């Protein structure tokens, strides 16, 4: 539960919708409770944040599939799809500027608020928004049907 607020923040940055964000977070906890996944001590936060990002990005991709005017190829099994999502995300992040990589980490891995990021980076909140907008838009483009 201690990670919930941060997870929710990450989900909302990608999906916006409160209900959808709650669903994503609850699905993750539910699958942990039922699936028997054992988290190594000290890695819980990283695992949870990555899970939120992956699930949100998969949702965005599914939305893109639904809206696509032509049938899109599948990426294989669910685990292959997870790997593909992670690869794309890793690729995009590695091509961002150093500051944007830091901001990505602060928001999407550590779950910091806009205010906290602004204080850590010594920039305004609006500047943080613009950096994050660029990051999210760049990632989303990779999930756009025309680029698949």
């Amino acid at each position, binding site marked *: *539960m201690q990670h*919930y*607020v941060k997870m*929710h*923040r990450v989900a*909302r*940055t990608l999906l*916006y*919708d*409160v209900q959808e964000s*709650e669903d994503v*977070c*609850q699905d993750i*906890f*539910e699958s942990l*409770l*039922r*699936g*028997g*996944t*054992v988290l190594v001590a000290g890695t819980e936060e990283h695992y949870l944040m990555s899970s939120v990002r992956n699930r949100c990005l*998969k949702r965005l991709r*599914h939305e893109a*599939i639904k809206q696509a005017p032509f049938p899109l190829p*599948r990426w*294989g*099994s*669910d*685990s292959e799809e997870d790997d593909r999502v992670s690869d794309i995300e890793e690729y995009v992040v590695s091509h961002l500027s150093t500051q944007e990589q830091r901001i990505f980490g602060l928001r999407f891995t550590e779950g910091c*608020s*806009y*205010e906290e990021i602004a204080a850590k980076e010594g920039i305004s*909140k*609006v500047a*943080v*928004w*613009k950096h*994050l*907008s660029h990051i*999210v*838009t760049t990632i989303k483009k990779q999930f756009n049907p025309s680029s698949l």
Partner: protein
Amino acid sequence: MNPMDDKQLFHDMQEHPEKYSDEQLEAMMAELDREPDAEEAWQKTLSRPLPCRERSEYKWQHKLLLSLQGRGRERVRIAAILVAAAFLGIMSLASYKAFTIGRGTPKSLAKPDTTVVETERYYYDVQDGDTIFRFENVRLDSILAIVGRHYDCQVVFKEKAPQGLRLYMTCRTSQTLNEFLETLNMFDGFNVRREFYMLYVETDEKKEGKR
């Protein structure tokens, strides 16, 4: 402004922040950073229904698992195994008693309108981080409700007939959806077809003909 408009506004602000004033962006940031009620959300997660027809014994096991979750997963596993063993023991004893009592009951006392309820068993076991689901005499719609949720798929029965079919099968959460469907489609009487994240269940006439 309806929620859809809000969402569109959010996406537009993300894609074209230059179109909006600092005040508008700050208002959106404040909205996004508004802390959710974590306690309430946690309770919602815990109160989500089990992915099967809820039977009192499963609810009880589930509650026990949840109450133990803070004390480490190993303890949870051990407790779950003990609970399952105790449950099986009680069930065996109850079955034996019922059998012995039933044998001693004169036929004349049996009511003519007695209904035999079909048993339905669904349970799961955790082995090396992989969860094994065992379905015993479980309706196809119940199985697909669980599986659909696991693979994030929408299940659609195109006809009613296959819904009530009862199956015995085992599956693992580590299986891919295609592997699961391959196993499932070996059963007679229906066919499950996958289209992206939709599973369509139809009566399989070819298979029906073979029966």
